[in-house]
């Protein structure tokens, strides 16, 4: 019957809808099936802790992200920022932007 819902299996057996099976209810209802969970997941969990190697020296790796828009613009009218964070020292550089496109004017 595959991995049928436990309550349905009980229902079938109790009402005699299927012959030749016995459902043992003494151990309580099964509520968790590990293989069902394995079959349903589509990807591995994302690690809670930083995986992989950290940069060994300052400047070795720089993380960047563009954030925004805010509902409240700054006094200067900026509502985005782009941040650069060093992996080793976490030295951070922040640049406020009016528009997202300002992150990328033609070089």
């Amino acid at each position, binding site marked *: 019957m595959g991995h049928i819902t436990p309550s349905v299996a009980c229902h079938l057996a109790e009402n005699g809808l299927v012959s030749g099976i016995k459902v043992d209810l003494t151990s309580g209802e099964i509520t968790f099936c590990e293989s069902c969970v394995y079959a349903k997941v589509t990807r591995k969990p994302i690690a809670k802790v930083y995986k992989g190697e950290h940069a060994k020296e300052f400047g070795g790796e720089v993380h960047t992200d563009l954030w925004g828009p805010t509902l409240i613009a700054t006094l200067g009218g900026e509502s985005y920022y782009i941040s650069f964070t060093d992996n080793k020292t976490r030295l951070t550089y922040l640049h406020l932007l009016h528009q997202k496109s300002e*992150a*990328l004017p033609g*070089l």
Partner: protein
Amino acid sequence: MKPYQDFEAWYHTQHDTQIKVLHSDCGGEYLSKDFVNHLKAVGTQQKLTVHNTPQHNRIAKRLNCTLLEKVRAMLHDSGLPCMLWGKQSAMLFGYKIIPLPKHLTAEHLLKLLLARSQTFNKFILGDLVSGYMLRMVGSLVGELPKGNGWGLMMGVRTDAEYTSQQGIWSPLNEMCTGIHLIMSCYLTRGRKIMIYLTQ
């Protein structure tokens, strides 16, 4: 990419360093030809995260939370709260801040609520950000007078954008009919508490 070039120059001049690897998400701004060509010309390796997985660029993303927390704490400290709550809630509701004792206890809060309750006969306590506050208020529930139209409501939202974008009211809208006072506690990392009363 002007900001990036500025950053590169700052790194180079002030810190005598070259950027070896640039780690970003797959945002369009990082994928443009100009930018990729620039990185190639300078010799920086580009590292992109898998799409829809901001967790892989956690260091950059965490910074956003940290910055917002700092901004909130600073604004609160300087007494400029209206910047916090976003245009919507600021326009829809007028509010004022009650100064609270530094170490707020359940009794303080209860006293405060009781004092207010003479003017308003119902209140809602919502948007408690931390478990600490939840427990504290949870201990209050038993002490509140029964009947008399007292109501207590608690909600937990921890995402950073929630408070600024939708205001603090949206989850309560349905329950708000007939309730004259809305009270919201917001706890920042520095354990500062703001209480907003709205009529």
